[in-house]
């Protein structure tokens, strides 16, 4: 099909971006799915979106691609839930097996709310900075910083066995945290 200069140029750009994002995307999806098959299915969806929306991909493509992957993953889970509702247990998120014996931290992470958990994973596993986390989540960089700050605080609290920031207080604390 690569018959025109426009098509060839598009293929070239796609391959260039894919080269940069394919491996990180695989890891991103494997961290958040039950098995490699699921991850591969979603990866194919992500690549198709990337191919179709190639003109929209920013220069810093990886966080944008993570954002797409996040959406595809959510679609995939919705589809799975529709298909398999009540047939088998479907947690909102698969529980990934820790690669370590740090059970305290693993347990603390698991006890957090999904939003907090995700922001911590993007920070520690995808190694993203708050401004990149912002792109993935579709929020402002400032909001991403606040969320990350709050999530680390809650994680630490879980680790020492008490939560100093119960749900419901965060709105009031937000302004204070934004300044830190």
């Amino acid at each position, binding site marked *: *099909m690569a018959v025109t200069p426009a098509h060839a140029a598009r293929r070239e750009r796609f391959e260039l971006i894919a080269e940069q994002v394919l*491996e990180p995307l695989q890891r991103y999806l494997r961290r958040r799915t039950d098995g490699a098959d699921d991850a591969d299915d979603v990866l194919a969806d992500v690549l*198709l979106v*990337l191919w179709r929306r190639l003109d929209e991909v920013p220069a810093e493509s990886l966080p944008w691609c993570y954002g797409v992957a996040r959406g595809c993953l959510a679609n995939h889970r919705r589809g799975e839930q529709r298909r398999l509702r009540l047939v088998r247990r479907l947690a909102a998120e698969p529980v990934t097996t*820790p690669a370590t014996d740090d059970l305290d931290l693993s347990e603390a992470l698991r006890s957090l709310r999904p939003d907090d958990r995700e922001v911590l994973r993007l920070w*520690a*596993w995808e190694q993203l900075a708050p401004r990149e986390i912002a792109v993935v989540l579709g929020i402002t960089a400032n909001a991403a910083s606040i969320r990350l700050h709050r999530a680390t605080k809650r994680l630490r609290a879980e680790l020492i066995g008490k939560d100093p920031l119960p749900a419901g207080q965060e709105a009031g604390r937000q302004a204070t945290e934004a300044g830190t």
Partner: protein
Amino acid sequence: MNDDALRERLARLDPAASPADPVSSRWAHELLERTMANDLSDHVDSPTAAAPGRRPGRLAVLSAAAAAAVVAGAAAVLAGGAGTGEDRPAQATTTRLSLPDPLAMSSCVVFSTDVLRDMPVAFAGTVTSVEGDTVTLDVTHWYKGGSADAVVLETPGEHTSASLDAVQLEDGKDYLVTATEGTVNGCGFSGPATAELSRAFDEAFGG
């Protein structure tokens, strides 16, 4: 435990520590090829597009158009002439395509019917307006990849006139046009509807 230490400790929980399939692997290569085989141009006018791959002949198009006109007329009668403006069959549909950037035309594939045949979008149309860098064509026949009544061709960048292979498009003239990924193909794959190009389109797309 400071942030860096916490981040490092968290990173050690990463369940995807096992290596990903490298982009150089056969699996990755096949995956990318499969992705790129998805033909975007079948969706140039997806809101109103016919089923992909549908390739009616001229007679089929004429009879379909006639049927649509009858349906539209019936709908108007049934609606009692309320004129809501939402009678879709009566509304003209428009697709937008880009003209190739004159400065970007660096290399051309040699023209052949075989190459032409692979073009995902092909139609015949008459130019009804030329306004600076924007040209509107009334579609007289869809060979492939669309169903809109009109196609608007826009020139990318800062160019002040709409041209194809360095020749300006002219009002009232008939053209045969192919496109890939939303961009009109130059290099002789689109142009004035000469007898020669018409034969090539008929041969490639079966009329």
